[in-house]
């Protein structure tokens, strides 16, 4: 018998990184399910592709860096990255898109910066931006939600479309996107943006079939599902309230102000909150611990910055949705925010380190 020496504390909370990551993945399940319901089974295939790519890339790079592969793979951080990217890209995007994106996220954005904990940018969002800039067409080819789809798309069609660009019935993805009149249907945010730029009022634009109750058809429910998942994460204390509240609050505040000033040329605040990737970003992406701010005040600033940027880009920028850009820009400011928002140490008059 010998006694083991260890340093205090000898007790640990039961939450470790792997468990936190698993909870994040779990919380995303309702959102993914709703997304699959409205936007086709393609999202599940994208998910599988992304996860396989992420894990194999991660393993390969870890092997090259001669790190402990098993331990690091089991922290499930690559899984979460893959998941976030897979749900962010269009369901019927070609297979190579998600593979390139995930590989870039894991190899370049995460591992080249030193692996988990050292990356400056959120890997999923950086990859999303890469894809969006490099392949704008497939990256914006969202199908309309199932209820307004002209042609129904089954699971087999999804596989065919993703791997061959044509469904089993021989329709191309762009044909699938068309309505009965042969006009491509864009996402609600995209539609609104185009319409506003063409001089329509918000109310006029909102009459189009891609819009449903409160926001886009299907998009409302997807956002609601991610909101639920986010609340679950909050309840589990996986994420802190500050970042999501600040993101949603500032987005709501900005759009409310704009809407009050000019309701004809601006979407309603609730439309903003339940459109596009708002809830996914607020609860799952912006809260990524690695690339977000770490101080209490910093998190509020970080979140608010994302909200403002999203509003600005959605309203005045060139892209219909903006979370990837907003999160990346905010990521860049994190070191600065962290430096200037250090808490006052107990017993010290001055705030933070000077």
């Amino acid at each position, binding site marked *: *018998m*010998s*006694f*083991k*020496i*260890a*340093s*205090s*504390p*000898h*007790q*640990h*909370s039961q*939450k*470790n*990184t792997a*468990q*936190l990551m698993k909870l994040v993945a779990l919380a995303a399940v309702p959102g993914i399910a709703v997304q699959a319901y409205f936007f086709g089974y393609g999202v599940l295939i994208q998910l599988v592709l992304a996860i396989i790519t992420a894990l194999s890339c991660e393993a390969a790079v870890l092997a090259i860096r001669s790190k402990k592969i098993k*331990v*690091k793979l089991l*922290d499930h*951080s690559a899984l979460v990255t893959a998941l976030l990217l897979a749900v962010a890209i269009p369901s019927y995007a070609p297979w190579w898109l998600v593979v390139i994106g995930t590989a870039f996220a894991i190899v370049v954005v995460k591992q080249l910066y030193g*692996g*988990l*904990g*050292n990356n400056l940018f959120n890997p999923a969002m950086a990859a999303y931006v890469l894809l969006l800039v490099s392949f704008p067409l497939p990256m914006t080819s969202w199908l309309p939600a199932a209820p307004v789809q002209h042609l129904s798309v089954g699971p087999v069609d999804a596989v065919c479309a993703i791997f061959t660009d044509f469904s089993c019935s021989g329709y191309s993805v762009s044909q699938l996107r068309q309505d009965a009149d042969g006009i491509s249907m864009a996402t609600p945010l995209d539609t609104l943006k185009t319409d506003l730029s063409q001089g329509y009022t918000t109310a006029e634009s909102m009459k189009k079939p891609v819009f449903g109750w409160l926001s886009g058809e299907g998009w409302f429910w997807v956002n609601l599902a991610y909101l639920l998942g986010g609340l679950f994460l909050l309840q589990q204390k996986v994420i*802190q309230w500050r970042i999501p509240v600040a993101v949603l609050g500032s987005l709501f505040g900005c759009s409310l102000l704009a809407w009050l000033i000019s309701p004809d040329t601006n979407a309603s605040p609730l439309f903003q909150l339940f459109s596009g990737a708002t809830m996914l970003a607020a609860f799952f992406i912006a809260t990524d*611990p*690695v*690339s*977000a701010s*770490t*101080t*209490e005040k910093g*998190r509020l600033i970080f979140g608010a910055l994302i909200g403002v940027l999203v509003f600005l880009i959605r309203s005045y920028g060139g892209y219909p949705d903006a979370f990837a850009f907003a999160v990346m820009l905010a990521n860049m400011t994190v070191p600065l925010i962290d430096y200037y928002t*250090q*808490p*006052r*140490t*107990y*017993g*010290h*008059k001055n705030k933070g*380190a*000077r």
Partner: protein
Amino acid sequence: MPTLFQQIQAGKVWDFHGGIHPPSRKERTNQKPVALLDIPDRLYIPLRQHIGVPGKVLVKVGDRVLKGQALTQADNAMAVPVHAPTSGTVLAIELHTSAHPSSLAEPTLVLAPDGMDEWRPRRPLDPDQVDIYTLLERIQESGISGMGGAGFPTHIKVNVKQPVDYLIINAVECEPYITADDMLMQERASDIIAGIEILVKLLSPKAVLIGIEDDKPIAAASLKAAIGQKDNYFVREVPTKYPSGGEKQLIQLLTNKEVPAGRRPLDIGIVMQNVGTAFAIAQAVLDDIPLIHRVVTVAGETLAQQQNVLALIGTPVSDLLNACGFQAEPQQRIIIGGPMMGFAIADWSVPVVKTTNCILAPTENELGAASDEMDCIRCGACADACPASLLPQQLLWYSKAKDQDKLAEYNLSDCIECGACAYVCPSEIPLVHYYRVAKADIRETQREALKAEQAKARFDARTERLERDKQERLERNQQLAAQRVAQQQASGQATQSAAAVQQALERTQQQNAQPLDKEQIIAERERKKAEALAYQQQKQQAVTSAPVADDAATPAEDPRKAAIAAALARAKAKKQAEALPEVAAEPAPAEAPAADADAKKAAVAAAIARAKAKKLSQQEPEAAVEPAPAEAPASDVDAKKAAVAAAIARAKAKKLTQQEPEAAVEPASVETPAPDVDAKKAAVAAAIARAKAKKLAEQAQVQQIEPAPAAEVTEPVAAPAESAPEQDAKKAAIAAAIARAKAKKQQNSEPL
């Protein structure tokens, strides 16, 4: 806006940043009465159990001590004594593993209890009748130091000059498992209050605030009952949150004040004492029971009986665990203190000391050992949990980078090492451990800086002194020269010498002028020759007779020593001559005629010298085996002096073996022992002379070193034995025998 005091009176409790809620597991032990144990077989009482310096030991090994008797005495303000926890015999005062994370050994008194538990006479005090100095003295004499954590001497903490607003009694006990204070309050609340009253007398605070966590309702109720109707005693129940028992955190909870960084609570008018300390003060003053026992929680699922015990200070942890039915696991951890801030021990003979409040023997399931450290994911949970509002992440980076400037900038020194950050860390990074290492490094750097500064000052002072000495010497020499000139002038010597010169000049001129007389010159030569001869003879005589003269000069003082010295010198000289073509091995001096000399001393000196010589010869490449030097017999002998001589000789010899031998021999030069009255000096001189002789002998060698012939070693051995007179023949014989044995051994082991 109510004042702070009004708010406190109204029962307001504030909050502090961060904190965690680990499972408390106190219910296992806080409903069982405090158990009494049998007196253990051995008590290990560390001489220092507090922050400061140990006291002066008052007892000797073998003394019988009574229960409560002081074992050390405080000879310094920062010292507090330790006491015998029971009556018994002092077995030893030795190094024993300390109750410290380092497991380093500390001076510890080992006591064998006799089972009688017999008290020394006791002198209880009435706190109302005596002045505060008597009370302070009693607190110090009773060995009381803070029992909550660090063990700061209590008499210093309560001896204050500044006014004190609040006396805070820390009864929070926020660490999981620990219920020692809880049980003490449940069972001895009135004693605790009596102790607090003594503290109040010493400090005269505006109010007494007793902070207790709200998970100890029974203890809080007992305290309230014991307080009764006293004014300005407030029992404040604080929400259960770790680490609300931290000094700074409790102050913030109860008064909403913060202790400024680098200051003490006293600077904001607050003194905090632990309940256990209050109880110990009451016992010391009212019953004259010094701090010889304390309540210790013994918990963990490897124990059949998890309970609180009243343990004598010095009881080994093993005794406590075994008394509670300990069943060890293969990779057992034993923790002194709680699971958050306690330390694991490697050796369970560690004793209970004044600050030991808990001993944990958990199973692996109960308190899982930390798994592998993973990468920081910057989640910030540590910063959220930190009660000091630090940024543990940043501190971790800079600790790893050993960037001490940055660590200071991020206030590492304000870390209280509570472990909350490491508890919540999802990557299981042992944050606190990194900080401790960094703190130790910083302390070391500061010490080094201070030392460098001192070294520089000393170096400068030395340089200055050397310069000054040089100057002084120069001046003195100049002065002396000037004086001499002046004297000469004064006494007219200058003119005399001038006259002498004049005369000499004249003489030469005369000689030059006169034709050379051959006969005269021859006669002159003859005369000079004779003179030289006479001089040589004289010199030789002086050499041989010098030691004798020595003898004669100091018969009254120490004829024996002188004789030995002389004998040594002579022996050396002779040996040198003999050993001339031989080895570097130093001959042993022994042929002491020592007629009237003390044979014993001679023998010893000889033995030592011989041993050294042997050692030396061992150093030669040929003789590889080193026999144990036979220096030991010097018990009542003046071995030191002889050793000095031997050492010098050895040193010279050593130097010589290193040098390249080249020159010719002149053994005659050996015979120059300084005729000195002091025998010691003579000995030294003799040794030097011997060494010189050796040097020459060495130089004669052209590197053909042979192994020391055994004869040479054994021969002198016989000498002292022969010459030893009856009275001490035995000892000398023994010494000789040992030496001979060694010599033989050496001879045998000599490589062929």
